[in-house]
């Protein structure tokens, strides 16, 4: 074996992975293989979680049956915050290191995050009516969550306002980064202000929810993570394909699948 090659410093596997992820054809090929598995994991987990939550968990002694809305409301609310946090992190990476895949992932996160925020607000309103007697109150938690929806819509609006996608993504990433200040406000709103919305029942140290009610919630929370991953990659693939329309690799991947070793098995229609 060549001695020079032996003395070369070995690249960290993680750094190598991120370098590869920065390559559009590699990202497109890998994500295309992952997406069906992520959707399958979501469907299986969501079916288990919904079955346990809707049919096996006992009714709550105070809220009755309406507590079952928690199995979609709580994971959706968690996802709305988690996705915004990730969007801000990817936006930061895109702004500092100018990595195009990070821009694409940040911008692909926005519609999914907006969907979860909308679902959290609507399911929360439908839980509030039988429990509080009102669909909506201008409570700190509800209001800050509504502001989160407006932030998502602002990011999407700003991204679509520019003709040049990279310039649009940079402007939208900056807004995403600034808007991240709302995340601690949402999280601590129930502690900082006297709110109608209840405090957290689950923390790192434990939970006040009975295991029969807790497990379906945790399964649904995990299912929504797979939903986000699958949806994010589907959107990122589309955005990447649209941006690289004039490039040879995307035409090979989409127009002549047989010529492309990455896509040959999956893109045939």
């Amino acid at each position, binding site marked *: 074996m060549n001695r020079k090659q032996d003395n070369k410093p070995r690249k960290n596997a993680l750094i190598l992975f991120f370098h590869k992820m920065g390559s559009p054809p590699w990202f497109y090929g890998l994500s295309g293989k992952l997406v069906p598995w992520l959707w399958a994991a979501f469907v299986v987990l969501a079916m288990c979680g919904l079955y346990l939550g809707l049919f096996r968990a006992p009714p709550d002694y105070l809220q009755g049956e*309406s507590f079952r*809305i928690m199995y979609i409301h709580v994971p959706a609310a968690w996802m709305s915050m988690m996705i915004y946090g990730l969007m801000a992190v990817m936006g930061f990476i895109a702004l500092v290191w100018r990595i195009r895949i990070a821009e694409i992932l940040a911008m692909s996160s926005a519609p999914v995050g907006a969907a979860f925020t909308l679902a959290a607000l609507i399911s929360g309103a439908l839980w509030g009516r039988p429990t509080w007697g009102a669909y909506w109150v201008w409570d700190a938690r509800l209001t800050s969550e509504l502001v989160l929806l407006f932030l998502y819509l602002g990011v999407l609006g700003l991204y679509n306002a520019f003709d040049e996608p990279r310039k649009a993504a940079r402007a939208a990433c900056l807004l995403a980064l600034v808007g991240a200040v709302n995340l601690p406000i949402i999280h601590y709103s129930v502690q900082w202000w006297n709110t109608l919305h209840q405090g957290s029942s689950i923390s790192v140290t434990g939970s006040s929810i009975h295991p029969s009610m807790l497990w379906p919630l945790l399964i649904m929370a995990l299912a929504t993570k797979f939903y986000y991953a699958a*949806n994010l990659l589907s959107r990122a693939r589309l955005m990447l*394909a649209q941006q690289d329309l004039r490039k040879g690799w995307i035409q090979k991947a*989409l127009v002549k699948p047989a010529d492309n070793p990455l896509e040959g098995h999956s893109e045939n229609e």
Partner: protein
Amino acid sequence: MSHAPFIWSAYGITAIILLWTAISPVLRLSRFKRDLRQLADQEQSGPGTIT
């Protein structure tokens, strides 16, 4: 007050939102692929290149 309409409405609306969010990129990608193939066919039948 029966809670069933609130529960099923919450699940139904969430399902519609998440289903649409999941399906829309798939529909857009298939439309994009079709347009790209049409462009490639035109390129094959006529002069000029896409690249």
